[in-house]
């Protein structure tokens, strides 16, 4: 893992800010966010609502341009959405008129790959997320967990360098969430993917991340970083895990306390 982290940054944010105009008032959703992500890293963004973590993710995705600072991918400014940055939405964002197979093949097909290549790629990623039996089902026939598997397979099948995940498991029940977390880690390990994962669960962040970026609101900004040194696979019930959870919880809490006083 450490060898991965010495490579050049895949993503770099320099003083990124985002200001919205809402009924004439200026709302600062994100201010002065600087962050470096290296290839193969699993980074979690955590913080209360309004801390700008989704805004940061949407800027990286290219859905919104930053109003201040620079967002660089492989040292080049991000100019709009592109397949190298795949997004997994909390509400899935699957195409309801396409089957599981067609949803996963959407990217390769949009990029004009050959039919055989598409079929091969799709088959591989359907297997990877364990949906072979549901390949020809439509999204409305799937459970939430299965939909999110399709959404993950969809960005993987499109050769994304970074997978951006916006509270992807937030709408799922606890059991499904645990299964998907494990599967995501397996995929991350086997593919060498880079993941930026937004969550508001401390436990989820510690379970998944190499590094947890703590954000806080008013205006949204990065308040600090925490490197999770626990060996993988991590055991949520272990005393070491609990110690980290307590420490990170205290940090988050102290940020909030400082803000309110």
């Amino acid at each position: 893992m450490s060898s991965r982290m010495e490579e050049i940054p895949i993503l770099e944010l320099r003083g990124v800010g985002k200001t919205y105009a809402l009924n004439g008032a200026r709302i600062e959703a994100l201010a002065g966010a600087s962050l470096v992500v290296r290839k193969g890293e699993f980074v979690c963004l955590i913080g209360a609502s309004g801390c700008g973590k989704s805004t940061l993710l949407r800027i990286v995705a290219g859905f919104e341009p930053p109003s201040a600072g620079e967002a660089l991918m492989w040292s080049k400014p991000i100019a709009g959405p592109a397949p190298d940055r795949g997004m997994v939405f909390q509400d899935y964002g699957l195409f309801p008129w396409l089957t599981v197979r067609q949803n996963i093949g959407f990217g390769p097909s949009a990029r004009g790959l050959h039919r055989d290549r598409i079929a091969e790629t799709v088959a591989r990623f359907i297997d990877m997320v364990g949906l072979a039996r549901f390949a020809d089902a439509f999204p409305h026939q799937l459970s939430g967990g299965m939909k999110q598997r399709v959404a993950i397979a969809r960005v993987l099948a499109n050769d994304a360098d970074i997978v951006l995940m916006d509270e992807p498991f937030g709408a799922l029940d606890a059991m499904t969430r645990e299964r998907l977390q494990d599967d995501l880690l397996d995929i991350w390990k086997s593919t060498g993917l880079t993941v930026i994962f937004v969550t508001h669960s401390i436990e989820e962040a510690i379970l998944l991340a190499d590094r947890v970026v703590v954000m806080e609101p008013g205006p949204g900004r990065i308040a600090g970083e925490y490197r999770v040194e626990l060996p993988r696979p991590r055991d949520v019930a272990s005393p070491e895990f609990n110690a980290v959870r307590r420490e990170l919880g205290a940090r988050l809490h102290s940020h909030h306390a400082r803000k309110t006083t």
Partner: protein
Amino acid sequence: MATEAAGPGGGAAIARRLLGGWKALIVPALLLLAWHLAIAAGMSRLIPSPAEVARYMVDFAVGGIWDDAFSATLHIHLFASMGRVYGGFALAALVAVPLGLLIGRNDSVRALLDPFLQMMRPIPVTAWLPLSMILFGLGPRSAFFLVFLGAFYPILLNTTFGVRSVDRRLFEAASMLGCTGSAQFFRVVLPASLPSIFTGLRLGLGLAWFVIVVGEMTGVPQGLGAVIMDGRTLSRTELVICGMIVIGIAGFLSDRCVVAVMNRLLRWSPSHVA
């Protein structure tokens, strides 16, 4: 008269249909009975009884009872009307669907056309009758135009609505997967607005049958609307009722056809599997 058209499907499907159809026949049967009793009680001497209408319908369809000018002419009138209804409807769909997609997708086209179309829309098709007779002459072309007009707005408005209400998330999903700009039109906009387009097509086809009577009221020798007008002029109420029944059934069967196509194309949508 209610000839049930057996749809595609296995024997079980047909049996289920007939069983379901059984309930649908209760209300018409009760109405027929009330009609029959009212006439038998002498409530109106101007309206024929159901049995008389049925007998006339047979003569209208195959002849052999009265053998007058209308005997065995049902198919002629039906086909004449169908040609105008489907022709006008098809033309309306051909113009309104692309135009609706354009208005829904392109802000300057919307700014240019939407206010004008919204202003034209409240004008009833019947109000267009005199103008259309001047523009297209007395006869079938005028009827065709009115059908076109009647079907046009529901298709246009529903298509526009469908395009405007595509979930923004789907555009984001498409663009991060590498499908951007005009490529999104066929891959996202069109499939996502298909349910609304079909709602528009169903409404439009219904209105086409609705308008055909108005369109065929003057200067058209053949057509179900002409039959109804002739029946009125000749005080032959049974003829009027026969025309009404044929239009009702033809409109119903047309709708079933659209629904069959719709259920096939929209089988991905849980709210459209009917």
